[in-house]
């Protein structure tokens, strides 16, 4: 089985978010970047398939040279090789278009994306990629078993979960649950050393339509301070929730 794991290079959750050039772009200055958490669950599951069933695992990112440390980290965790499509990921469709090209040329039969990335929260790349390839797609995937070309996948639904059966080739939008959080793999020294020797191929992008563009960013209006209510005066809380906030 050839697995492609799509890796988003995203600001760490705790990073301060600021914008530059008249609020037209994300200011990456001083921002620590990480593997998108949803992708990290998918990557660890892919490595599990490698260890259990001898799958080959390639990681891919669409981005500039500054994203390579994130790909190297994925290699250190255990991926066999990495691909970087050398382009600014302008929107979800552009990224899906680039990934579709990588999948077609690489003959991948399982593509693991995250259900959404922490930066733009679009939640669209996996679905668009499946649509472009004509592959089946399982979103919000919380468990994945593959036997030969038979797939059993579990997806999260509102208020529960649903078990699905399908066949490879397949794209999933993965999340927590693909592996337990305690089983997430972190790079060890040997992995970091080995990652330096692994192949990181840089590809130039293919032409794509521009369907959307990010025009501007805004930060939410500063929040007014919390209104503290005495524990002895809960009638006041009920009153505020009813008359002021109008939520009960």
């Amino acid at each position: 089985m050839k697995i492609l794991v799509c890796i988003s290079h995203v600001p760490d959750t705790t990073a301060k978010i600021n914008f530059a050039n008249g609020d037209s772009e994300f200011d990456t200055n001083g921002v620590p970047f990480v593997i998108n958490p949803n992708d990290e669950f998918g990557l660890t599951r892919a490595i599990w398939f490698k260890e259990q069933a001898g799958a080959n695992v390639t990681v891919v990112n669409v981005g500039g040279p500054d994203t390579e440390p994130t790909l190297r980290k994925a290699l250190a965790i255990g991926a066999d090789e990495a691909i970087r499509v050398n382009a600014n990921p302008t929107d979800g469709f552009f990224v899906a278009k680039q990934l579709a090209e990588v999948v077609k040329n690489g003959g991948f039969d399982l593509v693991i994306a995250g259900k959404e990335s922490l930066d733009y929260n679009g939640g669209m790349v996996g679905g668009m990629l499946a649509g472009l390839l004509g592959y089946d797609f399982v979103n919000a995937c919380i468990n994945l078993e593959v036997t030969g070309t038979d797939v059993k996948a579990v997806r999260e639904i509102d208020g529960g979960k649903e078990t699905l059966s399908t066949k490879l080739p397949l794209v999933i939008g993965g999340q927590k649950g693909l592996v337990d959080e305690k089983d997430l793999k972190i790079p060890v020294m040997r992995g970091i050393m080995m990652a330096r020797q692994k192949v990181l191929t840089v590809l130039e992008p293919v032409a794509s339509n521009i369907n959307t563009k990010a025009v501007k960013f805004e930060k939410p209006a500063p929040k007014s301070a919390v209104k503290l209510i005495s524990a002895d005066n809960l009638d006041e809380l009920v009153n505020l929730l009813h008359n002021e906030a109008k939520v009960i």
Partner: protein
Amino acid sequence: MSILIYAEFAEGKFKKTAFELASYAKKIAGETGTTVTAITINAADAAAQLGTYGVDKVLNVKSDKLTAFNAKAYADAIKQAAQKESAKIVLFNSTTDSIYIAPLVAVGLEAGYASNVVAQPISLSPFQVKRNAFSNKAFNITEITTDIKVLTIGKNSYGVFENAVSATEEDFSPSLNDGDFTVKVESSEKVSGKVTIADAEIVVSGGRGLKGPENWGILEDLATALGAATACSKPVSDLGWRPHSEHVGQTGKPVAANLYIAIGISGAIQHIAGINSSKVKVVINADADAPFFKVADYGVVGDAFEIVPKLTEKIKAFKAQNS
């Protein structure tokens, strides 16, 4: 030209978010002099219900093959409805199923797609919308440059507004092929008789401050009094005190409720990222320095084991008076 909405019908009724979506579409239709068409799948009493919120025409797909949700087949049906209606704007809610199918529809229609939209379009020409980004830490103004636009609208982003019209309803039979049904539902597990976090207007959520799973009774009583769903922080689900399906936050479920009540939750940044699009936030915590107080609208400092049962009694008394 028209505006097409996908009105989700589940377990014998329309979701409230379907009515919000109809209201949202009607507003744009009013400004552009066009009409709203809804596509529904195996829905009952659709024209009367959706018409109340401004839908002019319902395309109802009646098919035994679509009884269970199937992303590819549903997306194919919606795409064909959009083509039949020459829809230029196709709107979805942000439910689990709708965000699953929206990107498939967008690719099928060669449409630009914006998700997590939080308000009416900023402008229709150029077509610009405001959407949540960076886990609710910022907004992103996105311009869609394609002829057809696909949007998913966040829950509680616009509101539900009555605007009764007399809707027409017709049966719609999209041509579906075997390739649409290659993913099969084997089984599903769903908590029944409980408000889900996704549907809830009010969510009552507990953290490690509640000290153990045996203490969840006070939280459940409050939730029952408010008609709320129950949720929990990540440590609580990691410790196995509550099921994973109740975990809300960045790696858990997102919450966009009208009212979110956090009990004994300190407010780690990953937790806040998942719940911050809730409108009103209340925190009850013994530690006055807990970070949650910085993002909350109302706060009570003190012992949850004393405050929560008292609050439940006050809520019950309030409900009795106001019902």
